[in-house]
């Protein structure tokens, strides 16, 4: 476009499409990872086998920076808006839902402002299209030609997936006014929970604060004065950490006013030999996962020290087999051709660097904990 003004109807259109996509993720229960960063909230969903990552900003008013050329961005936006419209249509049809989305509450009604507001709230289910033939869903049925081991693995994976998708099932969560409502509603609803907020905030609240069946209330205040005894009061990080951990975490560490554990990134998986913060180790041990063992290579010592230590080692009892193995290894290293030796040296050097880094991090952590 000629001018870089962003028109109101463009914004409205974009918001509508984004909400439709979020509705789809809610309906298909495909959200996998959430990460709250200082820039915005990152989500990752698995759609049709592909990991789709997107970022949404925090709910503040955005400023339009002056060094961004909005004419170019608007041109790209025209294309993306059309593309997303088609994608939404296709995704909705794979789930057999009406597109443009209709709510179950309004059966047959056309889009009124009320229905638009309720759609925007993400708290209500979409109405599905009537399916004519009750065809057998072959995609769900397991392929019986697989080996029993693979089949067992697939069964386990399916069970895990089902468990994850019902993470918040049975939870009735009420959101406080100071919490990021839209993000939390999206996350909780995707994983099968019921959620509501104070009706003065936005349209579409299903139950109020005084409801008796509320199991959790999300608050972000330093102190919570009025308390109901039948519900837990937690900080919003509890929800995000539960999603990333694939289970309901103990609520104690997330009480209002408590020192929250770190919000770790789910996009990072620690490989062997890397540093793991103690909190993560504790969590992994709780779950019963194998903590990757770190190979700590002893750092390069000075020659004098090495000689002294060797003398000590010779004096110690060493098994013959171990001695032989070490000697063989040394011989093999010496007999390597130059090219291979160079590669070997490089590998050893990088491993050395890694282990020194890990050591340094541990030292720093110890220093911090002491003070």
């Amino acid at each position: 476009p000629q001018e870089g003004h962003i028109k109101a109807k463009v914004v409205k259109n974009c918001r509508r499409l984004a909400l439709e996509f979020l509705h789809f993720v809610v309906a298909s229960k495909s959200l996998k990872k959430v990460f709250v960063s200082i820039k915005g909230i990152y989500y990752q969903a698995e759609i049709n086998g592909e990991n789709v990552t997107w970022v949404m900003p925090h709910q503040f008013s955005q400023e339009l920076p002056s060094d961004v050329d909005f004419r170019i961005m608007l041109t790209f936006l025209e294309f993306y808006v059309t593309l997303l419209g088609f994608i939404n249509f296709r995704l909705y049809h794979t789930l057999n839902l009406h597109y443009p989305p209709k709510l179950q509450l309004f059966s047959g009604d056309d889009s009124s402002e009320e229905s638009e507001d309720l759609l925007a709230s993400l708290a209500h289910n979409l109405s599905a299209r009537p399916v004519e033939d009750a065809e057998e869903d072959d995609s769900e049925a397991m392929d019986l030609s697989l080996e029993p081991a693979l089949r067992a693995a697939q069964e386990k994976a399916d069970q895990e997936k089902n468990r994850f998708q019902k993470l918040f099932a049975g939870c009735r969560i009420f959101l406080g006014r100071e919490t990021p409502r839209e993000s939390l509603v999206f996350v909780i609803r995707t994983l099968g929970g019921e959620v509501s907020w104070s009706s003065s905030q936005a349209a579409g609240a299903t139950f109020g604060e005084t409801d008796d069946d509320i199991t959790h209330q999300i608050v972000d205040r330093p102190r919570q004065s009025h308390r109901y005894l039948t519900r837990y009061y937690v900080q919003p990080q509890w929800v995000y950490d539960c999603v990333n951990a694939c289970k309901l975490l103990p609520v104690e560490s997330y009480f209002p006013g408590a020192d929250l554990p770190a919000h770790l990134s789910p996009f990072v998986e620690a490989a062997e030999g890397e540093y793991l913060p103690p909190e993560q180790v504790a969590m992994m041990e709780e779950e019963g996962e194998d903590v990757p063992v770190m190979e700590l290579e002893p750092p390069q010592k000075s020659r004098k020290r090495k000689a002294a230590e060797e003398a000590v080692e010779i004096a110690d009892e060493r098994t013959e087999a171990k001695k032989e193995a070490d000697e063989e290894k040394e011989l093999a290293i010496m007999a390597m051709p130059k090219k291979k030796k160079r590669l070997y040296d490089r590998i050893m050097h990088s491993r050395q660097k890694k282990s020194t880094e890990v050591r340094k991090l541990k030292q720093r952590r110890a220093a911090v904990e002491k003070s």
Partner: protein
Amino acid sequence: MEKTKTKKKVSKKSKTSWRKNTDVKDVEEFLEEVRRDERTGGSARVKTDAELFFVHKKADVKDKPPAGRKHRVDVPKQRKRNAALAEEARQKSAAAARKSAAPQEKKSSTCPIVDLWATPSEAKPSKIARQKAAAPAVEVPLPGTSYNPAYNEHQNLLRKATVVEVEKLRKREKLNRFASSMPAMNQFEREKTWVEEMSVGLQLPGAEAEEDGSDEDLESDDSCRGDEEAPAAPKVVRADYRKSAKQRRKEKEQRETERKARLTKEARLRENEVYRLRSIKKEISREASSQQQVPKAAQEKNSQLGPFKFEEPDMEIQLSDELSGSLRRLKPEGNLFKDRFHSLQRRKMIEPRRPVIPHRKYRVKQYTKEAFK
């Protein structure tokens, strides 16, 4: 009595005056109408009923499918069947085309329309896989950018940022060093070297004598220097540097012979290339194959859009005292507009540009008018 207007008498004897003074408007209008009727089909009033209407004796409506079938979702079984049917139909049409022996435009070979949602991932065209590997649309965030990061990850992030900043600082320091290594002189010191500096390149009377012999020069130099502080003699340009006509002629002849020799050599080589045809063909094929070996992906990666290189924007970090630890007190860092804009530049969809800041090419001089002083 009113004076009647007499028509101005115009002679139409010449061609030009005839053409000027005739009025063809009515003819032109009529012709316009005719052409318009040809274009649009004419006025309906003039036409007969038979020309305007015709009675549909036989209904040519196709059998509609039953009502619900339209909305049926393509299930994998159906998709496979459809794909098989489409394949059969395509083969049939291809066979028919071959039979007719008419030159058929094969549209499918140039741009195959593939149903991305239906084909399994292995059969998808590789172009998509290549583009995806280049740079993802949304970069995975560093763990230190969490609003409540773990200590070590936050330190890692700060370290990365400090590396960048230290580099910038180093460059700035380097420039400052160059500026400061030339210390400013005061007026007294400057005067000492002023005469020497200002007389560089001048011809002074003592200078010409210094040109004969180098050994003698040292003595004469000292003596001269002692008297006048004469600087070293510059190179003297004599008046007899002009070339004579003979020299010009000689140079011209030489140039001519060189040129002729070069041309004859080229002609000889060109004529002899006929005998080198086989080896030339081999060279060409070798060049062509070596060019193809450079993978297209690498070419795209190395290519730069536009004159400016893409510079990574500053990382969004929050220092330890800026970290809020609470979602309510979080102050967001960074702007998603900028992030997306830079991402488009990083993926080479837009060329990186520098903003054109208006500036003057001259320095603005300021003065006050006499009246205002």
